[in-house]
């Protein structure tokens, strides 16, 4: 064997080892998430339950506070953010794409830059004051509006790519056919960017689903807390987590997102770019 072949095998081996380490760091938490909930005495190790049981889920089910958080509050906040972000982003990016706004690109980039600040930790105090003045502290609306504001610029950025990919002649043909601008949007543009709307909607939903900081600052009553905060009810007063119940709750927490993703992927195919398939 010459040295070239040896070197090539060595390189492959190293690459393989490196890939395994990377993969393991991603896969292990997922393995834990699907094994621990079925283990009556879960710890941080990944162990295949010798005696799988659903007892953990039963215990979680009896935690009314946590269940309401997951199946009511999270759905309201996630759904609200999803509808608002998808709706507003679609219309805004259509407007930005189809009319001549001076400095349009700069505007979008600046908005994206600031959005990470606006919904971020740094702006929590002014956001709190603003929401307080609006009388929206401890309301779903307050949380939904602030999160929507934070997500919109990126959503508009994603949507614009989809909208820019529709040939102008499609809309012009509809205009000449006698349609009003609103009708053109509804009959032609909207059906053609539907994959984009879905992508943005799911992305917004997932973002809102896992949000912790904004609801924890803007909400007061336990009745309205989302699941990310409610998961603290599986901690003891001393602050140690009850891993057995927490894992079961986390398992339930991930299911809606997974199901949503699978449905969308099956129905539309998930993609982050535009393009018309005729």
């Amino acid at each position: 064997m010459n040295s070239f072949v040896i070197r090539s095998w060595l390189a492959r081996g190293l690459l393989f080892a490196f890939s395994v380490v990377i993969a393991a760091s991603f896969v292990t938490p997922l393995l834990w998430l699907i094994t621990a909930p079925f283990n009556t005495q879960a710890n941080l190790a990944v162990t295949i339950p010798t005696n799988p049981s659903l007892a953990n889920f039963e215990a979680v089910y009896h935690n009314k506070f946590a269940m309401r958080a997951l199946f009511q509050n999270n759905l309201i906040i996630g759904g609200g953010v999803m509808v608002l972000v998808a709706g507003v982003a679609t219309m805004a990016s259509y407007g930005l794409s189809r009319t001549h706004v001076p400095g349009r690109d700069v505007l979008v980039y600046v908005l994206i830059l600031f959005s990470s600040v606006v919904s971020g930790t740094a702006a929590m105090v002014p956001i709190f004051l603003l929401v307080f003045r609006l009388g929206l502290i401890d309301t779903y609306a307050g949380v939904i509006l602030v999160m929507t504001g934070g997500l919109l610029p990126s959503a508009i950025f994603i949507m614009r790519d989809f909208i820019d990919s529709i040939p102008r002649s499609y809309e012009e043909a509809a205009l000449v056919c006698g349609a009003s601008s609103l009708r053109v949007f509804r009959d032609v543009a909207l059906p053609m960017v539907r994959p984009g709307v879905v992508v943005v909607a799911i992305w917004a939903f997932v973002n809102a689903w896992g949000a912790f900081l904004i609801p924890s600052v803007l909400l007061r009553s336990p009745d309205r807390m989302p699941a990310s905060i409610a998961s603290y009810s599986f901690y003891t007063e001393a602050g140690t987590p009850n891993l057995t119940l927490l894992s079961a709750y986390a398992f339930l927490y991930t299911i809606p997102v997974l199901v949503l993703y699978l449905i969308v992927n099956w129905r539309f195919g998930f993609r982050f770019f535009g393009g018309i398939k005729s």
Partner: protein
Amino acid sequence: MTQIIFEHVVKRFGSVTAVNDVTLTVGDGEFVALLGPSGCGKTTTLRLIAGLEFADEGRILIGERDVTRLPPRARDVAMVFQDYALYPHMTILENIGYPLKVRGVGKQERTERVAEVAQQLQIGDLLDRRPGQISGGQQQRASVARAVVHQALCFLFDEPLSNLDAQLRLEARAFLKHLQHELGVTTVYVTHDQAEAMALADRIVIMNYGRVMQIGAPLEVYRRPANTFVASFIGSPPMNLLAGTIDLARGLFRLNGQEPGIDLSALFGRLNGKLTDGQTITLGVRPEHLTPQVEPSPGAIPAQVYAVQPMGGEVLIVVRVAGKLVSVRLFRDEPPDLPHEIWLVPDLNVSYAYDADGNLLQ
């Protein structure tokens, strides 16, 4: 009665004047082709009629109604786009029926009218397909059907055949001309293909740099180009243009000042008083109006044979005249046996002189 009238229409895009002071009238039921190289303003002119662009100056009338400021939907025109613009999310039936749907025609009547038009255009069996499932030629017909179905005041075509292959294009050309004759609807047709314009139109509008260069019937434009631009754009190969100076007293034309001069006294006689001695003019002669001969004569242009191309029904001879390539067309199938040095006799009855600005002297 649908006339389309342009009165001194100007359209600018930033610093570019796309349509520059265009005045023209398209008569009722007339088929007018807008012809020119890309960027000449022909498509913008069409879009001004459709209302997809608004004129900066001037007036546009459709059927005696001033539509200059009206949006597309208030103009009642039908347009066929280069890419057909059929909606991928609708079936062919829904696509063709869309203008009717927008106008609030009920589903029952809509389906009937679409079926009727589709039958006429031989796409009746494709109605439940989607645009992606039919061929380019069929898509083209479907987009024409969408224009025909709602009986608009006029048809606008934006290079509708340029996405078809050569064979299909000839077929579609005949089909469009036949359809337009049958329906008798005022039609404006944009193309950069002069053969298409010649074949289809009642009149051709030739444009360049946003200006109208000539308006006329196809043969009129072909026979008597109003300027050197039209002369070099219409015809394949186009008109031969030879620049030179004139010696009015002796009736001679000198190519690049070369001796001996060519006797053009017959042409000069026709332009009596329009020419000055020593003036630079451009002589325009169609390839079929040059006759090759092997002996010099006073009215003949000396030339060297460059290439002989038999084309089937005709022979195209390319020769070199004073360093420039000139085309000669002979209507015979057998290529002639010519020596290298030949002389070309122009038919002065159908030859024209253009001044230094390229405008026809007459």
